[in-house]
């Protein structure tokens, strides 16, 4: 093998793979609009991207797994925590987290209400990007799911509704990202330890003004229409009384999944 041969290998190989790369780039470029539902990419989303950049968010957080590793991934954050909670959080992170208790605290960036709305629009849009199935399971900010080792845990197609509900709660539904099931552990939402008993007493309480008549109806109402009745106490709602809980479950869960979740929740006595 001579130097002339290896030079040819270098130039020919580089030219060939550059051409293939450019070809794939052209194809990719043409498919991005559909894969990122760019019809929903309005000026609020663009403003939100600029907020994301201006405040250097990705040098602490990851988004689509890209960025720095000092703060949680935010790919699915709007679906997991809802805009109500996130607006309140971004206005004053120290109202929800503390360095002593949680180890990390986000700085108060002084975002305007407009900037907060825009960046949440942006994050909600990112959540809809077709990411080839990433992340394979939800990445949570907080929450200590009491899980069995992989393989020994109930699966979403287990025969018993309660087991299916438990798998959904701690898995794909990401409920455990906001609700602990251990007593006294309040994450973003209240602990659900003993929720079966709490639900039964609450529907009987004169101050309750929702539509439910029984404990399981109360749980259903809380999942599908969280602001219908917000229990007093705790920092779980906006000053106007809107629950921090996301309101998309009526759309994203089917009736069977809601039944499964309730079957699991009533076991929490």
């Amino acid at each position: 093998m001579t130097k002339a041969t290896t030079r040819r290998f270098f130039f020919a190989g580089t030219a060939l793979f550059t051409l293939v790369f450019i070809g794939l780039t052209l194809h990719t470029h043409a498919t991005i609009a559909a894969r990122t539902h760019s019809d929903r990419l309005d000026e609020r989303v663009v403003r939100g991207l600029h907020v994301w950049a201006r405040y250097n968010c990705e040098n602490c957080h990851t988004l689509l797994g890209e960025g720095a590793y000092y703060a949680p991934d935010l790919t699915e954050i709007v679906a997991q925590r809802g805009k109500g909670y996130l607006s309140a959080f971004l206005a004053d992170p120290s109202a929800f987290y503390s360095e002593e208790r949680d180890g990390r605290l986000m700085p108060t960036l002084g975002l305007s209400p407009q900037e907060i709305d825009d960046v949440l629009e942006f994050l909600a849009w990112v959540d809809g990007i077709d990411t080839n199935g990433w992340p394979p399971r939800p990445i949570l900010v907080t929450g200590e799911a009491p899980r069995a080792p992989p393989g020994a845990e109930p699966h979403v197609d287990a025969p018993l509704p309660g087991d299916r509900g438990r798998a959904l709660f701690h898995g794909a539904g990401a409920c455990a990202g906001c609700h602990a099931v251990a007593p006294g552990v309040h994450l973003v939402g209240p602990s659900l330890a003993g929720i079966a008993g709490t639900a039964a007493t609450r529907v009987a309480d004169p101050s309750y003004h929702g539509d439910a008549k029984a404990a399981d109806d109360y749980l259903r109402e809380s999942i599908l229409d969280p602001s219908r009745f917000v229990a007093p106490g705790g920092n779980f709602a906006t000053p106007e009384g809107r629950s921090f809980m996301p309101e998309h479950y009526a759309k994203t869960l089917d009736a069977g999944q809601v039944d499964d979740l309730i079957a699991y929740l009533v076991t929490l006595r």
Partner: protein
Amino acid sequence: MLAYRSQRVAYAYFAAALVLFALQIAFGFLALAKYLGPDPLLDTLNFATAKSIHTNLLLVWLLTGFMGSAYYLVPEESRVEIHSERLAWIQLALWLGVGVTTIAGYLLGITEGRKFLEMPFVLKLGVVVVMLIFLYNLAMTIRRAGRFTTTEGVLLGGLVGAALLFLPGLIPFDNYTLDRFYRWWVVHLWVEGVWELIMGALLAFLLIRLSGADREVLEKWLYVIVGLTFLSGILGTGHHYYWIGTPPYWLWVGGFFSALEPLAFLGMAVYAYTMINRSGLSHPNSVALHWTLGSAIFSALGAGILGFAHTWPQVNQWTHGTHITTMHGHMAFFGAYAMIVLAMISYTLPALTGTSDAERSSRLGLWAFWLMVGGMFGMTMALAAAGILQTYLERILGLGYLETQRKIQVHYLMWLGTALIFSTGVSAYVWDFVRVGAPRGEPHTLGEAT
């Protein structure tokens, strides 16, 4: 002794590079302290600012080192003085001006917020101007000489490529996926593409000088190595296109070609080892020998093997966005690029300052080498443990991010301990550089005869 008088400008570039390197380490410690918490600077100098300064200083000092290396190497290869030494000084002043303004801007919260490319647009244009001056000066030097070696050709190819690939970073995109897609043209095609040409060329230059190996043989293999770099690295960009909204064929393309990426780095390690082995470590500048061989081996481990450890899509879907990346990033940048610049500085320092090679086999210089190499190896291990645990707890078991961080705190302590060893090595290196002293008076040159 210098072969050409104008090569002396390299000393200023190297001195500037080392100052920026030391600053990079300082900001690294600041960021690391925030991992250990609590953070008294939360609202004045937050993690994002400290981290972007840390990573930007890395790029700036490495590029400063590359520029200095080129101004040393090109006259020697082409056997002619630099076209305009004055222009080289103006370039350095402009470059440092842009760098200092950028960092000052970050401290004031002025940033474009794209990892590695946070620099505001106007200053990016400044970088373009600096690159144009630089490439013009080198091109004119070579043109005047009429002699153009393969080694400097590969170096120049790398530098031109780096300048061209900086341009996609100037284009703003409203679509975040497209923004990511073209950001990797800069970042990936730099560090796993054209920068490898710069590394390969500097390595070839050092090996020719240190081992006395036959240029024809060395340059023949240099083509093979840079050929493998592009064969694997160009389509290997696909490993950044798995989960950001790009089509699924990138999983196959990225996975396959990334698996080939270690070949170029392994090739460099084998190449350096064989050449040095043949000459029997006989060169008196043993510090430079250590850095040269060390760079070839460390880049094969950090960039080659540790990169491969998480580029396969079935692995990457769990490790993406964890400390596994931090682990790979630290050892790869250090092994491939920091070490080759340190090798160039160690090799050229006797000639630049008019001291003898034998003085360069100093004990302090060797301590600096082993402390940095040992410290970086330890940091990599600490980050590997942190990354594996984070992947398992957070991604596989589904524990919250914050709970996981608490459980891996002990590995951050190990990170701190090994980083202290590393920074002791950096201090030793800088002190060794200072101790030799700045060049005094007119440089001695060997003249055109060599």
